[in-house]
């Protein structure tokens, strides 16, 4: 009886496998819109729109929204649709969403993925499908070294921001004793490593904490920072923990300024730390201040979304505009648009764009800025020279 069961199930399984692979033979991989309709095309935004890391994603999506909105006003008879793909920043969900975008032949390009982890998981799929992606914020250096033909980024990677942050601490703050903390995320640890390289012996101590909202009590770190008697603290990580660490440092009487990367460059950092404690925090970003962005971007953004542009709103806007320029140019197949982006060179609101090997932004175009928290607001401080 049992053997029969096994045999029957095995037979059924085999049969289905054969049938399945036959179906696969003709159905697999069908994607590109071969005819390349001029109208009714779509671009997608890929990033966290809900969940604990949604703040950056919403900034970016709003930037893309503005770009699409403007495009549709200028071309009312041939509109482009924006498809938001909410990944919650999780690499688990990335392949399903990437495939969803690939399945829709009308989606010609992606702005995103916003974070590095999800980029790792989704990148191979986009590469295989030949669907071009321009990320406005995934800064992990290794992403451009994987041989993906479809990967482009409109910001400098951690190798450009980390040394800049280190230089700022060394040259502007003139700190001789620095404590370095990171949240063990790919982003945070990568940045902290670069900072340590620049500062060398000035780093008198370092510690790691848990990111993603898993740790809220930092008395161990705070005690060590206090004992180290430093002139500056660098934190590699995101705004949630940074806010708590700043608040607890200040409460313990540590007045040394906190220096952090663009992951902390968010209004939520100030609410979390409290305006008094956050005052004087230095935030670096391989981006330009949104208010410095050329043209009327800031006003238009506010008019559409009801809030000021945040971190990466401008780069997302530029990324979307690159894709839209291609579509307008009649590059309405995936391969044509990919070719277009590869050879693109032009000016956006945040920088001048031109891509080099691996989809990296031309290093000559990367600008790193320091921002300072003053009076409860993140205001631009100065551009940091690269060396």
């Amino acid at each position: 009886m049992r053997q029969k069961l096994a045999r029957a199930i095995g037979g059924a399984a085999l049969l289905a496998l054969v049938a399945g692979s036959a179906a696969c033979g003709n159905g697999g991989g069908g994607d590109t819109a071969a005819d390349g309709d001029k109208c009714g095309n779509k671009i997608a935004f890929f990033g966290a729109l809900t969940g604990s890391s949604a703040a950056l994603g919403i900034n970016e999506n709003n930037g893309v929204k503005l770009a699409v909105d403007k495009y549709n006003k200028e071309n009312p008879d041939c509109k482009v649709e924006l498809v938001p793909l909410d990944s919650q920043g999780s690499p688990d969900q990335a392949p399903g969403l990437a495939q969803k975008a690939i399945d829709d032949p009308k989606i010609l390009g992606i702005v995103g993925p916003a974070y590095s982890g999800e980029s790792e998981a989704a990148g191979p799929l986009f590469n295989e499908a030949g669907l071009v992606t321009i990320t406005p914020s995934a800064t992990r250096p290794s992403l451009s070294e994987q041989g993906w033909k479809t990967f482009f980024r409109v910001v400098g990677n951690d190798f450009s921001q980390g040394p800049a942050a280190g230089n700022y601490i060394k040259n502007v703050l003139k700190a001789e004793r620095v404590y370095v903390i990171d949240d063990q995320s790919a982003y945070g640890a990568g940045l902290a490593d670069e900072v340590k390289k620049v500062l060398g012996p000035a780093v008198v101590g370092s510690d790691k904490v848990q990111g993603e909202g898993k740790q809220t009590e930092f008395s161990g770190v705070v005690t060590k920072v206090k004992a180290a008697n430093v002139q500056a603290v660098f934190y590699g990580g995101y705004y949630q923990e940074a806010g708590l660490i700043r608040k607890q440092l200040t409460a313990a009487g540590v007045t040394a300024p906190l220096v952090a990367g663009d992951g902390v460059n968010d209004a939520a950092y100030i609410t979390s730390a409290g305006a008094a404690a956050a005052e004087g925090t230095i935030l670096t970003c391989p981006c330009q201040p949104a208010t410095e962005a050329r043209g009327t971007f800031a006003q238009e953004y506010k008019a559409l979304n009801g809030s000021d542009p945040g971190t990466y709103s401008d780069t997302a806007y530029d990324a979307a505009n690159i894709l839209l320029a291609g579509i307008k140019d009649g590059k309405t197949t995936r391969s044509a648009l990919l070719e277009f982006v590869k050879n693109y060179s032009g000016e956006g609101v945040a920088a001048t764009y031109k891509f080099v090997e691996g989809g990296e932004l031309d290093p000559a175009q990367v600008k790193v800025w320091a921002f300072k928290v003053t009076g409860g607001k993140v205001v631009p401080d100065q551009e940091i020279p690269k060396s």
Partner: protein
Amino acid sequence: MTTVLERVRSGREAAGERWRSAPRWVRWALLIAVIAFFYALPNREFYQYLGPIPTPGANFTQVMFTVSIYVLLAVGLNIVVGFAGLLDLGYFGFFAVGAYTVAVLTSPSSDLKTLWPWLLAVPVAIALTMVSGVMLGTPTLRLRGDYLALVTLGFAEMIRIAAVSSEFLKGQRGFNQIPHPPGQYADGRPVFGVLDARPYYWLVLTLIILVVIGVRNLTNSRVGRAWISIREDEDAAQLMGVPTFKFKLWAFAAGAAIAGLAGALFAGKQNFVNSQNFELLNSIIILAAVIFGGSGNIVGAIVGGGLVAYMIERFRGIELFGVELYEYRFLFFGVVLVVMMIFRPEGLIPNRRRAAEFKDRRKEVTVGE
């Protein structure tokens, strides 16, 4: 309220009765039809006619792969919780061990630089999870019930922290370029490519069928009877000469091995493994899925695992009154668990013996109520 519930309950019992009394060929035909249905499911040519079943917010085939991994995990956990009655809240930790073993052995970003092919790493992953199951089980299985639950939970959290913090396991940077399973079509395209998730799904489905056959055989043997005796009354089982500790360890190791297999499959499909893949919540979801489906019953565990994983994804992309339902998925999940346990604590498709126990307990007189 109660009368409706009673009627539903009796209706279900009648359906169960009918299934058991049906001629053997009918049962076979039905079983084959169900299996064929699931093999056909991820084909777009098929699922586009299924109305509301395909997920609107993500690619259905990819979702079905995730679902199938959850089903495999549920089948494995069912051995531990359903058969042996050991409350394991850290089951997902074994999944992590399996996935990380494959990642460390095959990925070019690993420190070992062994660069094994995927297929070679799978048996090692399974063996290693089994060993880690025994290693965790030996000291902890002397504890009972709630204590065991807590220790396993602590163990899973320790694995997660180790994955995040140790240099060797690369934390959130993770391992990339993990190779796919081998195989080529006639025209040289790989069977297990990047874009088409169907071969992975079929592979997992086939393995689920094999595992279920194995587990069924196991439970109908001396081992299975020993497990059930431990679940019913450990002291009595010990008294009757069942080496309870040995069999509990067996249940733990068998469950762990299946989770290791699932982890290895996941790593081979995903191509990228990092610490974000192993949240504590996943352990809880799987346990809840097994009990939701009906612990102690293989079919129940399959239905529970599949349904829970599917429902969580199904919420994506639905908007109701301008609210994205996906945001609310865990709220619903929690409420459903509470309601379910109050009205049907034995699960959707209970094990017959267990259902009888529940009935007995309900009748038992308690003082002071």
